[in-house]
Structures are given as structure tokens and as C-alpha cells.
């Protein structure tokens, strides 16, 4: 287990440790002096091999959440191995996992009384299933009546329209996701945003589905779109900080423990440093820009805990043709050093050069789950700072239109 911490934010960490000590046993009533105790805003993050039904994951950061049917104290479940994703918005849970836990969430309906279902594309596939309402608890924070998506791996709802998951490209299930769900805590409050509210031709994202299972794309008001739970918290609702330690072994660690902090600059444990923070504002699409290795291409870029590697395209680097990482980069001489220059968009216009290394993943230790220098053959149109970027950093994700001190979201920072 990786337990050492970086020293850079030692003051904040000391405070965190103090808070944790005060919170042992779930009791954080030690504030005293008549001041209400701070809300417990610290959720454990674990990088491990994944849910029992889908072992063998690498660079997957998981959290455990509590979900209840809205308004219920009994229709509740604790769900582990929910993938932490800083580049999507909202909570999505696998239906068969909810069913096994005995929880039925109330489905959302549109003005015509039809079930609302959603299709969302990730690079490697699509998820499909109904929108439902849930009371979600993350550490001590509660998002009540949160619109979430149920990823319908059991086909209990309407079948997807022909373009959603065509040719077997649905990744709805635990094995498809490598997780029991997805916790999207990105820079937006709602997943689709204004583009889905009043389009002349509704985007094929939200659908109204008849009881017979016929679905048509329809517009969706912001309040009923799948929503970032953090944005609905009573406090600590302006963003999150992902805090993972440096790895110990270049060839992979067997487990990593870190934390997800809710709020930025709202409590003693989530104060950004006074100087030295690189704040990268994003555009309305959630991207800042990156230029890779001195090239001329200005690529839309994100910091994405849902991606297992640095994902970009460099035809000069060989890809692995054998071993457990086919398709990832296997540089002929490893480690291969590269860099990219990040630039913020709008008011938060920091420029930051990030050096990184690419290892030969065939040198990784079998059964290790966390690798610092894993790079993948991504598309050439984007640059994705995946999980390796998070090791040894505090990564801030600021939600749109929410202020944290001098900074207003949407932004990524580190």
C-alpha cells in the first residue's frame, strides 16, 4: 500500500489528518464552542483491481457511495467500486448492481408521462438507460433528489435506439465499465447543458420512451438533466479536489489510497495554496488547450481520472503489439520523456508546462494496479491527462459559475 504523502501541501495535509483524527468513528462533534461541526467532506479513494465481477483493472480510482430511493430511509445501498471521473457529469449506476442491492429508484418521466432515458457516448462505447431520482450521500455530504442515470445492463427499460450502442458497442454493465458505476464530478453542473434544453432538433441524448419501448429524442430542462451531485450539496458545492499520493514503484504499485475532497476553499482541508496553483479555465465545452511536445497543434485537453493513461496520438512512438497492454505505447527506449504545455481559456488563463515519462508497460509488475508512466494511443484530435497525472498531485475541478476565492469555474487546477 502506498502511504507516503508529498510534502508540498504539508500544511493542508496536517489539517486533514487532524480532521480525520477528529472524525474517527464517524463522530466529528469535537468542534465545540457552539460552532456547528464542519461537514465531513473527505471521501476515500482507492486505486485497486476493480469490482469482483470485473477484476484486473489498472489505474482505476474508485469511491464508495451511499444511494437511497428519494425520500426513503430503507431503500438504500452502499455501492463500492464506483469509478471516479473528473471528465463527466453525474452519477451513473449499473442496474444489476442496484437490483442485487435491493434498491429500486423511481424513474423520471417527461411532460407526456413517458420514461426519460439517456444515451451518452464515451470513446469506447455508449451507455443507455433511464434517468431516476436518488438521495446520494458522499462522505457527509448529501445530494437529495439527484437525477442519476441507471445503466440498463438488464434490459428492463426501453431498448436503446438504433444509434445507441450499435454493433455491440454498449458498455452498460460492470464488465463493460470496469466498475459498478461512474461518479462524474467534472466542471459542469449538468451533463448535457444548454445544448439539450431547447434545440430545434433535439440532440440524441435524452429520449422520451413509451411503455411499448419506442424512444424519441427530446429536449430536457437543466433541472431534470443528470446532475453533478457536488453541485447539489448544501455546502462544499463549488468543486472537488482529487488527492492521490505519488507512487512508490516505477513498475507499479499494488494499491493506492487517496481522497476526494468536496469544496474548494470552503473548509480547512480544502484550501488552495496561496501561490503556485495553475488554474486552467475551460471553454463552454469543458476543454482547456494543450500543445504536445512542441508541436503546432492546439488540442482540446482535459484532466480525466476516468482515463487510465496519458492519451494522445504520437505516430513516432511504437504501440505495444503483445503483452497485457496492446495498443498502449511501448517506446523502444524507455522511459521516454515528453512534455505538453497546458493553457487555460478565458479569465483563468494559466500556462503550465508538464513533463511526463512513458514507460514500457511490459515492464510492469503483474497484478499491480497503479502505474505512473502509462500512455495510450489516443485519438489525434484531443489530449487527455489521465490517471498517471493524478499521482502526487492535488487536482482541483471547479464547477461552472461557482466561485472559489478568486477563481470561478469551469476550471481544472493543480
Amino acid at each position, binding site marked *: 500500500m502506498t502511504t507516503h504523502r508529498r510534502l508540498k501541501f504539508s500544511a493542508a495535509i496536517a489539517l486533514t489528518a487532524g480532521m480525520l483524527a477528529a472524525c474517527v468513528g464517524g463522530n466529528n462533534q469535537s468542534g465545540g464552542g457552539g460552532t456547528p461541526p464542519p461537514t465531513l467532506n473527505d471521501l476515500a479513494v482507492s486505486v485497486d483491481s476493480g469490482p469482483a465481477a470485473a477484476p484486473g483493472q489498472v489505474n482505476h480510482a474508485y469511491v464508495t457511495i451511499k444511494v437511497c430511493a428519494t425520500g426513503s430511509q430503507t431503500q438504500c445501498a452502499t455501492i463500492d467500486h464506483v469509478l471516479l471521473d473528473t471528465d463527466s457529469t453525474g452519477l451513473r449506476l449499473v442496474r444489476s448492481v442496484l437490483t442485487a442491492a435491493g434498491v429500486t429508484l423511481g424513474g423520471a418521466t417527461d411532460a407526456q408521462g413517458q420514461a426519460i432515458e439517456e444515451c451518452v457516448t464515451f*470513446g*469506447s462505447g455508449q451507455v443507455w438507460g433511464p434517468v431516476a431520482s436518488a438521495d446520494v450521500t458522499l462522505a457527509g455530504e448529501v445530494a437529495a433528489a439527484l437525477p442519476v442515470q441507471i445503466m440498463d445492463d438488464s434490459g428492463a427499460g426501453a431498448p436503446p*435506439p438504433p444509434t445507441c450502442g450499435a454493433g455491440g458497442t454498449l458498455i452498460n454493465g460492470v464488465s463493460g465499465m*470496469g466498475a459498478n458505476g461512474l461518479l462524474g464530478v467534472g466542471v459542469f453542473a449538468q451533463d448535457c447543458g444548454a445544448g439539450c434544453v431547447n434545440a430545434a432538433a433535439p440532440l440524441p441524448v435524452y429520449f422520451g420512451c413509451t411503455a411499448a419501448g419506442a424512444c424519441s429524442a427530446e429536449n430536457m430542462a437543466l433541472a431534470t438533466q443528470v446532475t453533478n451531485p457536488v453541485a447539489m450539496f448544501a455546502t462544499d458545492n463549488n468543486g472537488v479536489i482529487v488527492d492521490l499520493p505519488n507512487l512508490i514503484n516505477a513498475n507499479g504499485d499494488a494499491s493506492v489510497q487517496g481522497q476526494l475532497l468536496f469544496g474548494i476553499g470552503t473548509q480547512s482541508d480544502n484550501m488552495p495554496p496561496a501561490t503556485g496553483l495553475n488554474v486552467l479555465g475551460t471553454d463552454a465545452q469543458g476543454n482547456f488547450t494543450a500543445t504536445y511536445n512542441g508541436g503546432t497543434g492546439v488540442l482540446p485537453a482535459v484532466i480525466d481520472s476516468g482515463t487510465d493513461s496519458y492519451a494522445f496520438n504520437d505516430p513516432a512512438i511504437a504501440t505495444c503489439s503483445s503483452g*497485457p497492454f496492446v495498443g498502449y505505447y511501448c517506446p523502444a527506449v524507455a522511459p521516454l520523456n515528453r512534455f505538453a504545455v497546458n493553457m487555460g481559456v478565458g479569465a483563468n488563463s494559466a500556462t503550465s508546462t508538464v513533463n511526463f515519462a512513458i514507460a514500457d508497460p511490459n515492464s510492469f509488475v503483474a497484478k499491480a494496479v497503479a502505474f505512473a508512466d502509462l500512455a495510450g494511443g489516443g*485519438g489525434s484530435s484531443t489530449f487527455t491527462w489521465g490517471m498517471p497525472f493524478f499521482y502526487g498531485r492535488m487536482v482541483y475541478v471547479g464547477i461552472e459559475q461557482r466561485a472559489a476565492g478568486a477563481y470561478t469555474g469551469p476550471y481544472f487546477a493543480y
Partner: protein
Amino acid sequence: MSALWVAPAHAALGGGEASVRADANELGGAISVTLLQQYDILKIATAGGMRVREFLSRTGVVFAVSWSGPVVPDLQRLLGAHYASYAQALAALQRPGLQRSLRIGLPDLIVEVGGHLRAYLGRAYLPALIPAGTSASDLR
């Protein structure tokens, strides 16, 4: 009902100019054309922010397509007959799960997908049909 998910009648990638017209029709977009020495670029843009470019060779074959927009266009339609091998390659990924940025490199087909809800980007091309003197990096 959205026109984006009507079953494809024509293949774009590997198809001819008529298939581009059909795509524009399905997307509800207008076509503008840029004539280049080696190929033409047929650009489809919709009011909803979808941008699709289809690259038409001098022999009248669409050898590349690219897209950007708030959602992914209907790839079954855009990739045409090549969609099946793309879907097969996705299913065969050694590390399945959520991969936000992906390059599928098959001997006769390259597909690159990336982005997230509100902003997807991608392209697909048939390497054997790229005109001489044209670089894959031009196909955007």
C-alpha cells in the same frame, strides 16, 4: 424524432459523392465544398453545432470523414460498411471499460474518437485510399 438515428441508406466512408449528400440530408445540414488539388472536402454544418467533413478523392470515393459536435454523429452511417469492423475492434479491446480517447488502427481502417458530452471530435480514414502527396494529418 431526431433525424440523426435513421438507419443508414448509403455508406459515406468508401461511398461516393451521393452518399455525402444523403448524409447532409440526414443530419439536416448544408454542404459547402472546398476544392483542393488532390481531393475535395465536402463540409456539412448543422444549426445544432455538428460539423462533418467528408474527403472525396479524384476517383469519387470518400476516403476520410471527420466530425466535431455536441454529440457523436451516427457512426453507423458515417462509417458505412466499415462500421462493423470498428465495432468488432472495440469489442476486442484488451482493456475494455471507459476509454475516452481511442485510436483503432486496423490495416485498412483508422478510427480516432475522443471528447465528452458537449464536445466530441473524431475522424476515420481508409489509409490505402489516401491520395499520393496527402498526409493523414491533413484529414481533419
